């Protein structure tokens, strides 16, 4: 084992060490913020000779926000009960995080509303800029690597087709990036943006669909010489883009996991003298874990896609896997000691971006505001209020999705609503206004048409089984990394331990309480279809109409899904 035990222990539960023992009850907003300082959040004893900075899954969130981590994130197969499938109080016990501490608020669910009121917002790329600048002050040649899902997820990103994010990220000066939702801008726009990037656009698994050969625009890897170390960064885009997202929008490209090609690339860069091999991945955490056990020779995997935030790396063999959260909420710093062509040790810190504690970088604030200025009136328009916490993350439902399904049921006059189990989208606290920007933050996409169609009960069952297997197939290589499709007007039981075809039972039409009849047709409303030619109003307009009509939104507890087989 080349990583010494001592070095492993130095890896950080930085966040949990910030305040030591404290319970939130003793802390008012002012006290909490006075106790936290920027220096505490970013303090790091520079280590070794190489620094990596990882950001991922920003989903176009330029401004500070609230983001509730999931309370339900079930692991299956070998990952049952393993991180990141540990949530809430169990997560805090596992990492020794005090209840009510900043780390509790940043990393886990539980008491979210109270803690959010105390600790305030998180994220904001002007705060992220401050942290990156500080790391670069320690180590000027640190590598900044963006795991993708950057050019998607907001009103301004949609209106500018990703230009706002490209402008802001370029100012942060990343060294490389990989991709997922970017491709939903359509291949013409992706090609145009990528051709203009001043940094590497990597993806060893981005292939030409016609010839099944590596796509020229996306090299598999790039070499960097930093701290006297020859570093190869290999990119891995989201493997299931044409399946989980509309393939017709980027028909020239094929993806897949392609771990045999990954091994070829690792062998190739090692043969060219790479002393450190870093994988910038959008695989999702469990896929990265499996890949680390199959592909040999990767030192560090910077993991994205599944939006997990882990306070220390997970070790698989001699590979460390770093998970850096989402929505601009975290920056990971990984310092490495590379000697004699080998990684000898590491030190790591997952830095939570507390927006009220970390000073914004003024130049970046100005740049962000400039992107938003043309849309200021549209963004800030108040559509309604909420008396409930609105959030999305969780395997089965979130209150934002309950609201979206309610909107589909009432505005589209449907029996049943389906809403995709995506993991992006910030939270809104009880008592807050809901602005147009807030609605777009949880719905924005290039295929947001809200369709209305008919499905037999039998077909509906097939759909639920199909999506459930994307989440609960015991082999991570068959998982797509999202959550279960959200349902409105429909109840069911799911036994996650069963194989595809027999997990979902007891389908119930909630408005009548009757069992779903396999042979009967039901009116279904949904959005985010991957099929070309889908028609309907845009989902953000449907949700806006619904909220405007309600005035104040209240979401009752959702008990429509019963989960067994845990």
């Amino acid at each position, binding site marked *: 084992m080349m990583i010494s035990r001592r070095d492993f222990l130095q890896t950080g539960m930085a966040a949990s060490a910030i305040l030591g023992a404290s319970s939130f009850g003793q802390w008012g907003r002012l006290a909490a913020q006075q106790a936290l300082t920027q220096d505490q959040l970013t303090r790091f004893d520079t280590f070794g000779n190489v620094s990596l900075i990882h950001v991922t899954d920003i989903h176009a969130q330029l401004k500070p926000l609230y983001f509730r981590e999931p309370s339900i994130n079930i692991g299956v197969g070998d990952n049952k009960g393993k991180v990141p499938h540990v949530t809430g109080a169990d997560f805090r016990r596992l990492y020794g995080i005090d209840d009510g501490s900043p780390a509790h608020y940043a990393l886990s669910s539980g008491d979210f509303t109270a803690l959010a009121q105390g600790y305030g917002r998180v994220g904001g790329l002007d705060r992220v800029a401050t942290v990156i600048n500080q790391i670069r002050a320690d180590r000027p040649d640190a590598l900044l690597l963006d795991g993708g899902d950057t050019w998607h997820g907001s009103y301004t990103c949609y209106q500018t087709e990703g230009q706002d994010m490209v402008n802001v990220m370029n100012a942060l000066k990343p060294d490389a990036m990989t991709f997922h939702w970017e491709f939903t801008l359509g291949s013409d726009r992706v090609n145009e943006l990528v051709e203009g990037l001043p940094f590497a656009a990597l993806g060893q698994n981005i292939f030409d669909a016609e010839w099944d050969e590596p796509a020229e625009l996306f090299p598999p890897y790039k070499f960097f010489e930093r701290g006297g170390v020859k570093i190869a960064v290999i990119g891995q885009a989201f493997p299931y883009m044409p399946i989980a997202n509309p393939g017709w929008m980027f028909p020239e490209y094929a993806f897949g996991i392609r771990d045999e090609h990954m091994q070829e690339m690792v062998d190739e860069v090692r043969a060219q003298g790479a002393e450190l091999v870093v994988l910038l991945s959008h695989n999702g955490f469990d896929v990265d874990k499996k890949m680390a056990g199959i592909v040999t020779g990767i030192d560090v995997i910077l993991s994205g896609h599944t939006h997990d935030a882990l306070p220390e790396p997970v070790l698989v063999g001699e590979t460390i896997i770093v998970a850096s959260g989402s929505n601009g909420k975290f920056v990971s710093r990984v310092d490495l000691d590379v000697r004699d062509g080998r990684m000898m040790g590491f030190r790591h810190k997952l830095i939570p971006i507390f927006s009220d504690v970390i000073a914004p970088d003024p130049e970046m604030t100005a740049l962000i505001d400039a992107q938003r200025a043309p849309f200021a009136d549209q963004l800030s328009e108040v559509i309604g209020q909420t008396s409930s916490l609105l959030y999305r993350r969780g395997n089965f439902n979130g209150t934002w999705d309950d609201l979206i399904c309610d909107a589909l049921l009432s505005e589209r006059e449907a029996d049943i609503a389906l809403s995709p189990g995506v993991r992006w989208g910030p939270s809104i606290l009880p008592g807050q206004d809901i602005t147009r920007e807030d609605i777009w933050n949880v719905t924005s996409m290039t295929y947001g048409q809200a369709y209305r169609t008919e499905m037999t009960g039998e077909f509906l069952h*097939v*759909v639920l089984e199909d999506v459930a297997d994307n989440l609960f197939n015991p082999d991570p290589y068959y998982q797509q990394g999202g959550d279960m499709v959200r349902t409105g007007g429909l109840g069911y039981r799911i036994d996650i331990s069963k194989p595809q075809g027999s997990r979902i039972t007891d389908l119930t039409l909630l408005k009548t309480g009757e069992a779903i009849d396999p042979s009967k047709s039901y009116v279904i409303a949904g959005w985010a279809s991957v099929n070309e030619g889908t028609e309907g109003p845009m989902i953000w307009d449907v949700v806006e109409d619904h909220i405007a009509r309600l005035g104040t939104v209240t979401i009752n507890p959702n008990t429509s899904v019963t989960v067994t087989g845990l």
Partner: protein
Amino acid sequence: MELTRRNAMILGAGAIVATGLPLTAAAAAGDEEIAAFTGGAEIGSTGVTLTAPEIAENGNTVPIEVSAPGATAIMVLALGNPTPPVATFNFGPLAASQSASTRIRLAGTQDVVAIAKLADGSFARASSTVKVTIGGCGG
């Protein structure tokens, strides 16, 4: 998530395979073809590599590659298809390499199998589950 007739047909096939109803018949048909190819000889597990996607991007055209250094022939079967045999690649003594790639059509989620006849006359088998899915809800 919206259904089209095409997807409904793909899904229907997928669901049948998933519940396992016709698989026994299909697997038996595959066994027959394999027995004819091997002459009933024992089949080992090393010497042939099958590369296939875990989840097909398009079930109508799934890229696969087979490779077996020194082999004289490689047979490919899609066990869940109405007609399981896909192709048999024969390699002459002057073949520079014993590998081939092609695209195959899969009726639904199923195992794709490659059987190679190796240089010493023995046989080797590799198999891979390829999922055909409707997808639609990535994170």
